[in-house]
């Protein structure tokens, strides 16, 4: 992923819709999509109690470590799903084609079996979109950064000045 990526608005809207529907059907608190480098792509649902960016970064780290662990024990397909069941809140991580990650956070009342089913369905719908997304990522983007970079340098001096 060497070139810059930018998520077109229509693709972004489709992804958001899938996550929203998953959230509703699975009765989850919130649903996040991240790429395997830990970059948050979308977050839907009740987000007041969590920091989605940090959750995405940690989930990606966890999945990478888990995949390595699973590879060590001789499992040929290291891209699966991981569930942590907590007393009040639980988290389910599901790898979408090895390059994206669905993160579902849910409470004690959510039926886990159904949730898994809806996650798998959502992942199937996300798969072609993420492929499109990856294609977009591979290409240099026509991103107008001119004003941005000049102002950013000043802003960094202002915010970090004297620290």
């Amino acid at each position, binding site marked *: 992923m060497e070139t810059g990526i930018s998520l077109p608005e229509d693709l972004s809207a489709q992804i958001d819709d899938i996550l929203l529907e998953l959230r509703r059907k699975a009765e989850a608190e919130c649903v996040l999509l991240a790429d395997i480098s830990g970059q948050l792509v979308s977050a839907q649902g009740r987000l007041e109690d969590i920091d989605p960016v940090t959750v995405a970064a940690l989930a*990606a780290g966890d999945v990478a470590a888990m995949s390595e662990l699973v590879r060590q024990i001789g499992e040929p397909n290291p891209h699966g799903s991981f569930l942590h069941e907590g007393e009040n809140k639980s988290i389910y991580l599901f790898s979408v084609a090895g390059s994206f990650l669905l993160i579902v956070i849910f409470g004690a009342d959510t039926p886990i079996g159904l949730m898994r089913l809806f996650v798998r369905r959502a992942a199937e719908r996300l798969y072609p979109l993420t492929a499109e997304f990856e294609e977009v990522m591979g290409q240099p983007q026509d991103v107008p950064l001119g004003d941005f970079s000049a102002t950013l340098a000043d802003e960094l001096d202002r915010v970090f000045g004297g620290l």
Partner: protein
Amino acid sequence: MFINWKLREINLKIVYYGPALSGKTTNLQYIHAKTNPNIRGELVSLKTRGDRTLYFDFLQLELGQIAGLKPRFNLYTVPGQSYYVGSRRLVLQGADGIVFVADSQRERFQANVEAVKDMAENLRSLGLNPESMPLVLQCNKQDLPNAVQPSVLQRRLGMTKVTCFPSVAIKGTGVFDTLKAIINLVVAQAQKKL
């Protein structure tokens, strides 16, 4: 770099790389301690009992809108110990820029050299070109009596063309200069590519 036009956010992933105990975590701790809580998240450290970084440290900074885009910087450190090669590679994935935190102490010289080599290998294994990765060198622990001059380190690490800052991360000297430099470099490079 990741731009979400819907949310009008621009995300950069900056990785602090270097040998074990060179001061990578200390950089993030200082940034976390000094920045306004409004613009930064929690400093997340995954460490072992020995206080060594296990997977990585993570800190996000978010500035207000600039030219219609909200910049967000995701800062990571990598664990230095050689047996954590897996998590170093993971953290490098999708990196937009790297700060190489060298330990300036004379006896850590070989450790720096090995970390540079290891960094290049890991980048290549991820399909990234080490030559074109935005890089800033930080020569840390300049306060110690056995510290070598930054220019010497720069030469011996093959980084004479790389922007270099002497630093004392525990006191914060050079920490924000380094951060500003890598962010500006990443954005400048992204612009050049277009």
